[in-house]
């Protein structure tokens, strides 16, 4: 049992720096997000909740399999629809970061999901309150952050179910055809 005040806070921390998620999981997640939004609707319907949609926004970055550093970045308007982006996949590169736009009801978000830990970076949330009561500002921002975190979680769960199923292999074949420039 953990006792407050023991150690320096770094030893034996589960999920710490030495216990990172294997990088291929995040790369496959980003690939699934991209492909699903390109060829499908990029939408998740949740029972008793409003659905939300997502699409790749203005940035994709790639790494070589087995390496961590970024070796190709595509930016600008709709980089995910360019032949260069698909050629990177067909050439054996995998995704390291993806910038997404998300919409739920009338709320729009943008976020970069980065690296093997699916880190949240540069997240733009539709906060209305800029000045005034700090409590109101904090509560609004945290509500919106939590909604974003929830949407990322829902997408990851959907991806996880797909990746763990027997359907992934034929799904990967379709993505391979698409990456090579063929139909999705």
């Amino acid at each position, binding site marked *: 049992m953990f006792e407050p005040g023991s150690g320096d806070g770094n030893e034996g921390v589960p999920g710490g720096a030495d216990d990172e998620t294997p990088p291929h999981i*995040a790369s496959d997640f980003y690939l699934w997000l991209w492909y699903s939004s390109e060829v499908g609707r990029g939408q998740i319907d949740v029972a008793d909740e409003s659905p939300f949609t997502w699409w790749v926004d203005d940035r994709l970055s790639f790494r070589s399999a087995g390496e961590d550093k970024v070796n190709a970045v595509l930016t600008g308007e709709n980089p995910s629809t360019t032949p260069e982006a698909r050629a990177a996949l067909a050439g*054996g590169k995998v995704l390291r970061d993806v910038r997404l736009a998300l919409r739920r009801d009338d709320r729009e978000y943008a976020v970069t999901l980065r690296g093997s830990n699916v880190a949240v970076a540069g997240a733009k949330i539709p906060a209305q309150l800029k000045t005034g009561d700090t409590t109101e500002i904090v509560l609004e921002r*945290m509500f919106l952050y939590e909604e974003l975190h929830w949407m990322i979680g829902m997408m990851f769960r959907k991806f996880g179910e797909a990746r*763990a199923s027997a359907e992934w292999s034929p799904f990967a074949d379709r993505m391979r055809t698409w990456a090579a420039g063929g139909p999705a």
Partner: protein
Amino acid sequence: MGALKGSISARRYQVLGELPPDFTPIYIDKLNDNAFRDALSAAHKEERLGWAQVHNLLDTDFSDSNLWLYQQYAVFSLRVDKKVLPATLFRATLEKRQQTWCKANNREKVPFSAKAELRETLELEMLAQTLPRVSIAEVVWNTREGWLLFHSHAEAQNDRFRKLFHRTFGFILRPFAPLDFVSDMPEVAARLMASGGTDLRPAHLGDDHV
């Protein structure tokens, strides 16, 4: 940036442990005990760190909980100061001082002990004239649900933060990992861990890579 305005770039942690009942007065003391303090000497060169209020990094008194506790959210900042001397200017100035010493003492070379003294004197002089490099990263802690956001992805900054957080509150922080999203689906998590990366090269139909 991020806690009160602007975009959010933050690492999420789970806080392992339970808060004491009526924690506010206890944590006022803990935050004050570990608040940022200016160095007593202007020539101090070691890194200094501590908590500061989120509104202004110069405010380090947490006695008024209305300034850091907003319902269930504790909001404060980690401030880290470090003085760094301009290396090239330091080397050039030291060389000049060594030349002056040689002239004054009619010697060709500065002996080791005198060189060390010149170096130390110059270091103290320059440190006294140098402003620290100040970094600040915000913390938003949901005390009700046991998670927090630390608004920095820098590894060194996160290490400092986890250590100071533990020293202050006694809690270990566990970094959030994507597999936490499927913690209630252990079979999916296990299959994800066991899978390889999907290789979309045409020549590798059906193969995986990492």
